Structure formats: C-alpha cells, structure tokens
C-alpha cells in the first residue's frame, strides 16, 4: 500500500477497499518500524487518526478531493497550529505554533491526513540533514549515506514509504538535491507560486515551498493544492493556477532541451554524467531536440548565493531572542546576556556560521563589496537563464555532482558542502521552477535528473517528467527493505 500512487490510493479509498483510518494506521506502523531512519521530528498519531476519520466521513459524503484521506507529512519548517514546529532547531524545540501556514491550511482543506513533522537541516541550512538538532536522517538506500538536505526527512520518508508524499522547501536546492539522493520526484516552483506565509524564513528572496512525491503525477496533485495567490504574502504572485494534471499526457515531441556546458565540467562525477546522458537520450527518443547552451556566470552563483542567503538569514533569525517564544537561557543576568546566551545555546554551528557571515556582509564598510555585488551577480545569472530559455524550452542537467555522500563525510568542511550545491543554487537566484526526478542509480544510490523551466512553467516541467516516467521505471524503484 505504501508504494501506491495518490490516484490509486484515492481509488481504493473511494471503492472502500480500505479506509483512510486503515491507510493512516499502516503508515503510522511503518513510521514506528523504520524510526531508525530518523525521518520524523514529531509524529502526530492521534491527530492523524482523527483527520483520517474525518476524511472517511467526507469520502462517504462524496465531497472528497484526490488528497482526501491521503497520509502526507509536513517538513517541520511549516507552522502547524497546536503542533510543535521546530525548524530542526533547539531554539524552537518548545514552540507549539499558534497558527497554520497557508500551505498547511490548504492541505487541511483538501482533507489530507498529516502524519507528522519531518526532520530537516536546522533552519533549512544544510545539504545533508546533518545540521538538525534532532540528528541526521539516514538515506533509506544506504543507511550510512546522507539523504540530502535540507528537506532530507521529507525525501527519505517518501522514498521509504513513511508518507505518501511530503512538503519540502528549496532555498538553494533543498527539495531537488534530497529528491535526487533519495530517488523521488521533487519540484521547486517559481518563486511566488506557493505562499511562504507560515513557512519559517531562511532566505526570503530565495525560499520556495514545493511537493516531494513518488512521481510527477503525484507531485502535480500536490502542487495543485499548494500553488496559488495568498494575500498574506506580498511576494505571492497573483496568476491563475493551471490544471497541472491535465497536461501530463501531452506529447513532448519537438521539445527543445538545452544542456549548459558549465553543468558538465570537471566537478561532475562521470557516473552521474552517464546517468544524465542516458536520460537525455531517452528524451531524444521521445522526439526532443538537444542543444548546448551557456551559463557563463554560473560559477559565481555559489558566492552570490551565500552572501544573499546569509544576509537575509542574519536578519530573519533575529526574532529568535528568547522574549516571546522559543528557547530562553536560564537565569539571564541582563538583556544582552538573555539575547546572547538564548541564541548562542539555541542555534547550532552552521546556523551561527551563516548568521555571522550575513552580519559581516551587511555591516558598515562591506555592504557594497558583498551584498550589492552579490545582487548584481544575481542579475547576471538570472539574465544567463533568460537568454538560454529564449533559445530552448527547458534546461536539463545534474542535480548534484555525485550520488549521496556518507554521513559525516563533509560536515567538517562547510565550503566543500556549499560547493556541492553548484547545479541547484543558481535556479533560486533566478527564481525559476526546477525539478528533480530519478534517472538512474550509481553505486546503489539513486541519481536525479534536473529539469529547469521558464517562469510559471511548472505544468510543462511536470508534463516532461511524466512523459519520461511513462517510458522508464526509475521512479518506481524502492530501496532494499522498503519495497
């Protein structure tokens, strides 16, 4: 049951083959059984069963949506009213959110069942899920490997069948990279497509929530619920939401695919390169045309990203001060002590590193050299994409330079970790939609293909991914022990 698609599960629920309560219980059992993966920070068992019961009633009444009664899970970055929302941090370990994120509200309206809150890198800062206060998540394909990050809990949970699908957020690759490492399908929508209200901010101009699922079709169903204008988010875009499932079956003959030469340089593992090449060949067979494009400024994406993201996060995380909610240090001597120790004891090392970096980049005397410079580079990178996307329909390439690396392998070397985000980070700077879907296996670990589209072309990306998934079965493979 845990490997079925949303549409199959919805059919089963409607036909009475199983109830949502049964389905939910089955997933809750699996979560317990595989707790060593450490996917969940909080399992909301009672709430899930209540919601499942309500969903069964709703299905019986005949006003169900495709997601009614489907057990999903939320990345612990989305505020969930009455449920602990930690963002993977000690500083929010006692934080029971007093309101729902817009995305959570939308899933509630659709009638889905929330199994719990998923593990993640602290404040979404990390590419390996190792910065979480709640410990590393294990990759179900290789328990000694990282699942990717920051949405590592989401990716691992979906891959292991501990949730039908899950939400993720992507600031520099945090949906796509773990999706790639765990062999699932993840989509980072266009900036502004999904409301950020109630999604705890890391870097506001880069953050975007999106679906993480077993297939492009499931991702389409999720995105249908998540996308749309939200008056509570000034950066939310007021454009109609297309029917994402309707176009999935459109033929893709004549599709123009661009391959940026900078994506296939020296840093790319040759086995991963072979997987990407094979996937592109599959598209060729489906009638696509391939063209080389260029992203001359790509190599500056990492420095630009780390300036902008650090700067934004240094301010975004100032609100965690031990005054109104969250962790407060014991017996503060004075105000400065309250701030300094609450934050010092509440934040982990990577978060501190980025706050320090951002504080420095914004401080007097350095603002122009770092922050303004990064914003200019951001425009140049964005222009590179615009130019390439005027020549081709989509851009394809790897998601990460290699398959999932080992837990502990890079955590001691932050710069090396940052450099592994080279293929995903530029897309966030430009605000474009991009997805990752499984396209092969290297050394027993899955490898994803990245597809980057034009602004608001999510329907196109899903269509292109779905067509691939009709002729291949990478997305249907499960890690050993989770079949």
């Amino acid at each position, binding site marked *: 049951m845990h490997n079925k698609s949303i549409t199959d599960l919805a059919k089963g629920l409607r036909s009475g083959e199983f109830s949502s309560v049964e389905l939910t219980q089955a997933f809750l059992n699996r979560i317990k059984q595989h707790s060593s993966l450490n996917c969940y920070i909080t399992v909301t068992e009672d709430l899930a069963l209540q919601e499942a019961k309500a969903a069964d009633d709703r299905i019986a009444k005949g006003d169900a949506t495709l997601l009614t009664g489907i057990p999903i899970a939320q990345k612990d970055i*989305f505020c969930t009213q009455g449920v602990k929302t930690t963002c993977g941090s000690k500083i929010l370990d006692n934080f029971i959110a007093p309101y729902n*994120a817009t995305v959570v509200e939308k899933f509630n309206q659709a009638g889905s069942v929330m199994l719990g809150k998923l593990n993640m890198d602290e404040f979404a800062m990390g590419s390996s899920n190792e910065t979480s206060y709640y410990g590393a998540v294990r990759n179900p394909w290789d328990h000694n490997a990282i699942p990717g990050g920051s949405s590592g809990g989401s990716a691992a949970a979906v891959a292991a069948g501990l949730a039908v699908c899950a939400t993720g957020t992507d600031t520099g690759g945090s949906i796509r990279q773990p999706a790639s490492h765990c062999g699932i399908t993840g989509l980072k929508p266009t900036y502004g497509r999904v409301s950020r209200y109630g999604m*705890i901010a890391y870097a506001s101009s880069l953050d975007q929530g999106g679906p993480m699922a077993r297939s492009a079709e499931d991702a389409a169903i999720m995105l249908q619920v998540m996308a749309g204008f939200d008056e509570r988010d000034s*950066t939310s875009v007021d454009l109609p939401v297309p029917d994402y499932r309707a176009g999935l079956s459109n033929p893709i003959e004549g599709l123009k695919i661009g391959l940026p030469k900078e994506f296939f340089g020296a840093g790319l593992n040759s086995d991963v390169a072979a997987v990407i090449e094979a996937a592109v060949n599959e598209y060729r067979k489906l009638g696509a045309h391939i063209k080389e494009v260029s992203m001359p400024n790509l190599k500056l994406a990492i420095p630009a990203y780390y300036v902008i993201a650090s700067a934004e996060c240094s301010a975004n995380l100032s609100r965690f001060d031990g*005054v*109104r909610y969250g962790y407060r240090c014991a017996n503060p001597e004075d105000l400065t002590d309250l701030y300094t120790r609450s934050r010092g004891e509440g934040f982990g090392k990577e978060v501190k590193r980025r706050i320090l970096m951002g504080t420095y980049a914004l401080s007097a005397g350095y603002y122009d050299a770092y922050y303004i410079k990064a914003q200019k580079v951001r425009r140049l990178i964005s222009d590179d994409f615009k130019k390439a996307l005027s020549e081709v329909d989509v851009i394809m390439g790897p998601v990460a330079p290699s398959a999932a690396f080992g837990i502990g392998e890079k955590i001691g070397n932050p710069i090396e970790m940052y450099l592994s985000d080279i293929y995903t980070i530029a897309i966030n700077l430009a605000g474009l939609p991009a997805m990752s879907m499984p396209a092969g296996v290297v050394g027993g670990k899955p490898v994803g293909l990245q597809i980057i589209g034009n602004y608001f072309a999510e329907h196109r990306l899903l269509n292109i991914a779905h067509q691939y998934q009709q002729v291949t079965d990478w997305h249907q493979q499960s890690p050993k022990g989770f079949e």
Partner: protein
Amino acid sequence: MEWEAVIGLEIHTQLATKSKIFSGASTAYGAEPNTQACAVDLGLPGVLPVLNEEAVRMAVLFGLAIEAEVAPYSVFARKNYFYPDLPKGYQISQFELPIVGLGHLDIDVDGVKKRVGVTRAHLEEDAGKSLHEDFHGLTGIDLNRAGTPLLEIVSEPDMRSAKEAVAYMRKLHELVRYLGICDGNMQEGSFRCDANVSVRPKGQQAFGTRAEIKNINSFRFVEKAINYEIERQIDLIESGGEVVQETRLYDADKDQTRSMRSKEEANDYRYFPDPDLLPVVVDEAFKAQVKATMPELPDAKKQRFKDQYGLDDESTAILTSSRPLADYFEAVVKESACEARICANWVTGDLSAALNRSGLEITDSPVSHERLAGLLARISDNTISGKIAKQVFEEMWQGTASADEIIEAKGLKQITDTGAIEAIIDKIIANNPEQVEQYRSGKDKVFGFFVGQVMKEMQGKANPGEVNKMLKDKLK
C-alpha cells in the same frame, strides 16, 4: 564670540490608519497590553508583512502638501538592532529610497517669514513599549504599538533658534492634522520630536558637532530642551571642551539634557532591502487620485479667511488653528446669514470659552453649528439682542433645544411694538425728572441711564436700536 545654533528636527508622526502598517491589527490607543499585537506584530516565525494602502496614501498626501518630490519608486529596508520592544530584531523602515523627497514648509517667527527645507519623509513601523514599573526587577513589554505606521519627517538643519524650531514643529503639527493623517496627540505619542542641535561661531560655514535630543513630547519642552542644549554646548566650547556626537535625553523636571547611557558600540544598523516587501510604486494616476483629496491647507485658508470674511489676524489664527474649527465657523456663517465678524466673535468667544471650561474639542461641542447658526440668525434678524443671545446660548449649552424653542418658551423675543416701548419710555421720563433735567442741560452720559432703565423694565427684550432712537426723540 557670537554663536549661532543650527537645528534640525526629526518628527515621528503616527499615521491615523485603522490598522497597522503591515498587519490587520488595530492601532487604537489605550488597549490592554498585547491585545492588539497579532502574529505579524509579534514577529512569530513564518509571518509576513503586507503594506497598508492608507499609510501610502497618507505619505503621498503629505509629500504633495509640502511640494516635495513623491518618489515613483520607494523601497522598504530592514534596520537591524536588538531591543525587546522590537519583536523581529529589525525595524522595517525606508533608507536609501524614501517615499517623500525634498520639500519645504514656511514658518513665521515674530512676523519674519522663513522657508525650512524638509529633507525627506519615510514610512516605517513603530516599536512597542517597555514598561519600567517594577516586575520583580524585570521590564514588561507591550507590543500593541508595534507596527503602528509612522511617517518620519526629517528637516534640513535650517533652523537657527529654539523659537524657529518650535514654529516649524507647530506648523508641521497643524499641517498633519489638516491633512487628517495624524491626530497630533502628543500625550499619546502620536507626534514625537527628536532635535539635532549644534552650535558654530557666527559666520562660519561648517557645522559644529551635533547632539541628538530624543523624544521630546511637547512644544514647550522642545523650546526648553534646545535652549538648554545650545547653552550647554556654548559653555562647553568656551571652557575649552568639545561637543561629542551623542544621543541625549531631556529631563523636564530638571530642565536639562543628559547623555544617554553610552552605547557599547557605534550603531551599525546593517540596512538592506527587506526581501519580504517589494518596491512601492506610486504612479501619476495614484498621485492624481490623492491630490484630488487634498484639503485646503492652513496658509491658503488663513489668507482666504482674511479676504473673504474680513477677519483680523487674531481671529483668523484661532479659527484656522484646526480644520474642524474652521469648518464649524464657515458652516455657521453660511447657515446663519449673519455677519462673519459676529460669527467669528461667537465662535472664538462664547463658544470657545464654553468648550474650554468643559475641556471639549470643537468636534464634541454640545452646540452644533446648526444650532449656533440658528441663534445667530435671530440676532441678525433682530429677533433678540446680543445680550439675550448670550442667555439663550447658555440654555442651549445645557440642553438640546434650538434657539427658537428657547426664545419662544422663555418669551425672549425682542419687543418691536413701538407703542409698548413708547409707553415705558414715557413712564420712565415721568418718574425721573431730575435725570431728564440733567440730560437736557447737556449731560449726555445720563442717556445710558435711560437706556438701562428701559431695558430693565423690558427685561432686555427691546430692540436697543429702537429704544435709542425713541429715547432721543422723547428727550429732545
């Protein structure tokens, strides 16, 4: 050495919106602590700001009123610092690109006109309040005020005396209330002033080092604080000291300024554009829309009151001191068909006195302009005398009856029946032969005695003009 003071003011005006600048919480003053601080105002994780249209409209209206350049494109920035009344650890403000650019305000000090430059005005959110009453040695934080829209209006260092600074501040105070963008209530902190003060030898071009005096909350204190600070700086320099750039607080009880606890480090606010907010675009259409709502401004109204109603400077100044008072006056003139000067005397005289006694504003006057106009109309058509009118007014103040109802009920109508007046005059002349003799022998003063007697006999209801005329005839 002769010294010259250089003064610039930064005035924070709370905009009179219903809801906050970035949230839908109420801005009403005086609520229970933290009952008007919503998720956005508290800076809960994940919340986002959305800009209040009315705050933008008010800022634009102000910009147009001071003939400033209204920025077609302005940007909100984060000003980063830690303070418990600042929930997010940053204040959303405008830094490099404010919504209102260079404008000006004309002031008048002792008949001398002067133009004061307004460098800029920018939108920002107010902070909460720290309450220092003792909570077991702790400070209490009320965030109701957090997120209230502020327009910070920064002047050029154009003022040269405390008097000029106060004149500028008053002018601005009058203007924002005219525009309806701020209630101007200084006790409640709706209109707050910081003053930058420096001194330099007269004739020197370069500015001296300035001190900033924070949060001075009355016109009187602004004048005193600046004067104290000017003296302090001159004394300091003359005794061989040096002014340091610092923030000072004015202590009204001691009438002096004192240095605020020296900051551990220089402020480094790390301003950068707030990524949660997009650029604010004010296009020509929006500006035109706002301009169409521009009320008549104080200077224009003053001139018009003099021209149209023939009023003197003093009455004009009083009547135009607030828009509701000016409107009240004009309504009375229009509705009573009474001479404007008489209306002005009533509004600035009896009505103002009564309002003062009761501590009421014109907008809360128990005697509406319709009712006052009803009274003045009876003066102008000679139904009652001015003296009786005062009596009627007192009745009106106490109750709800109209002037006509009171005149009718109390029988205060002026007697214009010449027969009745004549009979009384005859009686009085007959009863006071001595005074008649005096008058006829040239003692004109006695005339007043006869008028008084007649009026007394007639309980003030006789038309004084008529009485005068008839008395003169009879006494010939």
